[in-house]
């Protein structure tokens, strides 16, 4: 139980919001609810993870998307050796 929670926390801390391009219908609920004002919708159109330095991984966009487009994933964006 604890292992699972700690895994979740490490993904949330080091993970990125990743869109599934095929599911997105560009409704804008994600961008609308982002407390930082990141255009998550535009990322979903391009199929790009949200690499914005200000993304808090607060999870609002992931939770509110009516089509389950977004998820948290540990991507290799910040692997060692990257700047």
């Amino acid at each position, binding site marked *: 139980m604890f292992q*699972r929670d700690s*895994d*979740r926390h*490490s*993904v*949330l801390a080091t*993970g990125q919001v990743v869109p*599934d*391009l*095929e*599911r*997105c*219908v*560009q*409704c*804008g*609920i994600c*961008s*609308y609810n982002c407390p930082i004002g990141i255009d998550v*919708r*535009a990322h979903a*159109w391009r199929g790009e993870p949200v690499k914005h330095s200000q993304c808090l991984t607060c999870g609002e966009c*992931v*939770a*509110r*998307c*009516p*089509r*389950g*487009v977004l*998820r*948290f*994933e*540990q991507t290799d964006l910040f692997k060692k050796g990257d700047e």
Partner: protein
Amino acid sequence: MRYVIVGSGVAGIAAIEAIRSVDTFGEIVMIGDDPHGYYSRPGLAYYLTGELHDKALFPRTADDYRRLNFRYMKGHVAEIQREVQSLLLHDKSLLEYNKLLIAVGAQALPLEVPGTNLEGVLKLDHMEDAKRILKFARRGRTAIVVGGGITALELVEGLLAHRMKVHYLLRGDRYWSNVLDEQESKIVEHRLKEEGVILHHHAEIIEVTGKNGHANGVRLLNGKTLKCDLVAYAIGIRPRTTLVKQAGLAMDRGILVNEYLQTNDPDIYAAGDVAQAYDPLTGRSILDSLWNPARQQGTIAGLNMAGKRSAYIKSAPFNVTRLAGLTTTIIGTVGGGRDKDVVGIARGDSETWRELPDAVIAQTGFDVNRVRVMVGEKTLLGAIVMGDQKLSLPLETLISAQVDISSVRNRLLAPNAKIGDVITEFWTGWKARN
């Protein structure tokens, strides 16, 4: 070189982006008769419920459009004059084209009973329709919704959000019986009832009654009458083919196009809801009324128009929607079950305690978590995931890539099988090898 695109939906926008990726100089003109231009039509459902305001539905800024460098005209095309490669517009002017894309979409099938011309009988195609619905949606008033499928539920949810009393009329004995199984229909109907919707089964409208030009009730086939302040219908759509019929292009229910999205006129293409695209894998021409296929078709059409030969490869049908608040993914073929390719149906809990690789965290926390998988001889043919969405990505991959699942087929179909665990385990192994 002038590219002309008729229609301002996602197929048209995708085509413009695709053309520009190949041709920076050719002139592009887009002409559309939706006064609001390009916006998310699927998002209208969330505008109705109040989760979004209308401005949020527009994905592009003026800057984005400027960067794409095209001319946008609000207008209506009266005729396609193929012999002179021109469009006759509503104001009698002519617009010449070298390559033409028809991306005018589809529209709601009309309710064919007396009284539908009364005020307050509404459909949901475009933003103007959504605004009209919002004008009529008033707390305490009564609404009647008729239709099956997704749009009807969007109407129900939208009207409920405005505190209307909603009667939902189903023609059959359960909701969306050609896609959902009995249990799934029951889940949706139960949630609707909890939200206060009054469900009527085997209910068919034969007349809309009115007073002073405004709808005030409906009469049903079984003799029952219901009082209401508005009637919203969603009984299906049909491609907008009037323009093309007159031009003599090959048509079936939609405009027939080959795998390059080309019509029988080599300079005219069609994409999106209006197009009936040829699928080389099955040899059939299918209509699609989903956002992403429309975008893909627009992209492929644009590339071909600009000279970059590309074939449209249809992926397995795939749709995610929200049914009475439950995120539901539908992949491949799930309805009927009388399909002779189906060897068995596996049902179970879609929540899985097994860890997925890369610690994927998807939407969870639903009170309902169901999965139904249509199992074929060697592959999975389709699936429905209601609620917890963790399994939808693995299932999407396994179904569209037609992965050989023979090694776990019997485990999946075993009684009381832990479907979630079987699929997760299989997918984890498959991903590691691919």
